């Protein structure tokens, strides 16, 4: 009996050897973990990939900015893996910067989005942005100003009530927009800012991987409103006064009559006046503000309708009123006919 229990104990202890970890594991200090990746295209058939890798050595953090050129992306990634000082691990990538020239090419962009979703290691919640500037310069600028501050990008893109016009786009959202019948997407555009690292320059509208237009940060706020964000904290300067938005809410009622979609949107905004010229009444400010927002909306709306890019996601509201087969034709048949009755109701504090 005693011998038997000892034998059992031995078997149990042997199974501890399975606990030594995963297969072929590399400890964290033997890995190279890029934080930001930049993809751009020079000439016609030469890709450039730039990686920003923080390195911690004896307590001090430094960084490496590696650049590689090649004719295909997978070639470059292979080259990077070969030349990197230790095992490359993409699982901590936070930001993918795509050069505008590359993003303008529909085919390349689609390929890139599919690739970034297919790479298993790359987290699908990494952010995607577009830039016009030189990516290497941008990374070194961030590095110079902020060092290897791991959460910098996260904080830049999630400022919510502090800067409601900033929006963010994840890889999985871009991937979804490649296939979705009823919703298109906007991707943030950033530039180098000499003092703060990067600057937000509005967003680019993508229709299934094709860049169809651009909006500035102010207009981007409107797009954010349609994606369930709040305009709280936004400061708007009208000609005669300056106001701050205290709260906002958007109500949509979609309806379909004889294949003609109609949406009535009611945007309720509560504002507070922070500065005003002499003799300007509350009513004037309300009127001015209402007019400004409505004008902005119709400007973007007509522009996107011409491009058949449903960046507001109006199609989502019709998903239940059309059949799945009809939804396929949303962008081409229904969306150009869409009428939007956009009304702003301004109230004062």
């Amino acid at each position, binding site marked *: 009996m005693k011998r038997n229990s000892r034998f059992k104990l031995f078997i149990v202890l042997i199974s501890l050897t*399975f606990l030594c970890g*995963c*297969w*072929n*594991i590399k400890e964290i200090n033997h890995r190279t973990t890029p934080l930001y990746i930049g993809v751009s295209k020079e000439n016609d058939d030469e890709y450039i990939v730039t990686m920003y890798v923080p390195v911690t050595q004896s307590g001090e953090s430094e960084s490496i900015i590696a650049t590689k050129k090649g004719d295909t992306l997978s070639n470059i990634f292979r080259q990077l893996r070969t030349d990197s000082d230790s095992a490359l691990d993409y*699982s*901590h990538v936070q930001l993918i910067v795509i050069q505008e020239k590359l993003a303008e090419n529909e085919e390349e962009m689609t390929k890139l989005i599919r690739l970034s979703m297919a790479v*298993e*290691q790359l*987290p*699908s*919640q990494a952010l995607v942005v577009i830039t016009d500037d030189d990516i290497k310069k941008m990374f070194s600028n961030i590095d110079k100003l902020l060092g290897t501050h791991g*959460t910098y990008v*996260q904080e830049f893109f999630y400022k919510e009530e502090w800067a409601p016009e900033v929006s963010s786009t*994840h890889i*999985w959202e871009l*991937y*979804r927009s*490649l*296939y*979705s*019948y*009823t919703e298109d997407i906007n991707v943030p555009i950033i530039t180098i800012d000499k003092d703060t690292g990067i600057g937000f320059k509005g967003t680019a509208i993508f229709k299934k991987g094709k860049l169809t237009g651009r909006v500035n940060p102010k207009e981007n706020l409107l797009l954010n409103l349609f994606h369930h964000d709040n305009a709280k904290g936004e400061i708007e300067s009208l000609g005669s006064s300056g106001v701050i938005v205290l709260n906002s809410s958007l109500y949509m009622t979609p309806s379909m009559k004889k294949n003609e979609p109609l949406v009535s949107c009611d945007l309720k905004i509560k504002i507070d006046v922070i500065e005003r010229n002499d003799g300007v009444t509350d009513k004037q400010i309300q009127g001015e503000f209402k007019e400004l927002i409505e004008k902005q909306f119709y400007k973007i709306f007509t522009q996107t309708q011409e491009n058949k890019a449903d960046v507001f996601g109006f199609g*989502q*509201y019709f*998903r*239940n009123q*059309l*059949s*799945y*087969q009809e*939804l396929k034709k949303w962008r081409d048949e229904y969306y150009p006919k869409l009428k939007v009755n956009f009304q702003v109701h301004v109230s004062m504090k």
Partner: protein
Amino acid sequence: MTQRVQMALLVCVASGGFVYLLYPRLVTSSTDSGHWVMVLFQGLLQIFFMLIYKKGLDYFPDKDLIDIFRQMGKWVAFIILVPYAFILTSMVGFGLRAHSEEIIAILRMSRTPYWAVLAFLVFISAFTAIKGLGTMLRASVIVFIITNLLIMFNTLTVTANFDFYNAFPVWPSSLQFLWDTNFNFLTGFSPLLFLGFVPSENNMKYSHLFWVWTYVTFIILLSVYIPLFIFGQETVVKLHYLVEEAVDTVDMRWFIFSRQTIFFGMSLIAFTIFLNALLLWKAGQLMQKTFNWKKNKRSYSIIAFSSLAFLMGLYVPNQYMIEKSVELSTGIHALLIVIIPLIIFIYGVINRRRMAVYEKK
């Protein structure tokens, strides 16, 4: 009483192993809208066979499935139950292979060979199966609680990315999917036949069955609708591991574990081990009772079956074949889910009538 509750929990846990692997993919590939109708029809089918089976088993209060078949005749038992044991083995083999590929994908262990994960899963399942039903029943309680907490956590965090409009249109465009072969495969994804392995007097009552059914249907709805709410039908059909991709979209940098798919992977492993331990135990039980072996021989047959399952899983060449073989084995299992309850029920009715005639005389 407690044993009945434990049994219900065990069936719930085992169902989890079936549900998360292929179920969402099969549902989304066979209908493009109104997925809940398909799930509901599937659930109705399940409850229909479950009731027939339970009713049939109730005619023999102190006997289990194998005893009943043996009562019908030795050859009937041999013809139906021995192939059943082998089908269970093939389900274990192919299912575990598919699961080990998914676990590698979820836990990002791309450098781990699949056979290592497969060996690990087979080993633990076989070990649990050898330990017997009692062990599984007792362990199922704690596993049920832990996995449900993890799944609840996953579900709650994933809601941040939900867009409910993505799951529309609510109604299916046609009921064509009822005649789809996928629909038949889905019937096989159920541990329903387990009911027959415990004599009916100690088994779950109708109320327990109903609760198990509700839980399983709810889990299925979750596994189908979580990816749908996030990606929408158009994108979902392009993805491979739907639930995993959906759970992975959540930004969890504020949390100690930056990727919460780990939790999903953990609960998946628990589900899988229990499911396959149950299947192996069933196969062992079938062999032992059909051939009237001694008790200790059951563990040898379980070891033999698990080695066979390991080899089956090992030699499937690629992902396409894995899916095909899983579909094939569950398809045959689906056939058994239809046949066995009907046979038991009809035999029960005939038996009752014969007894009545006998008593009259």
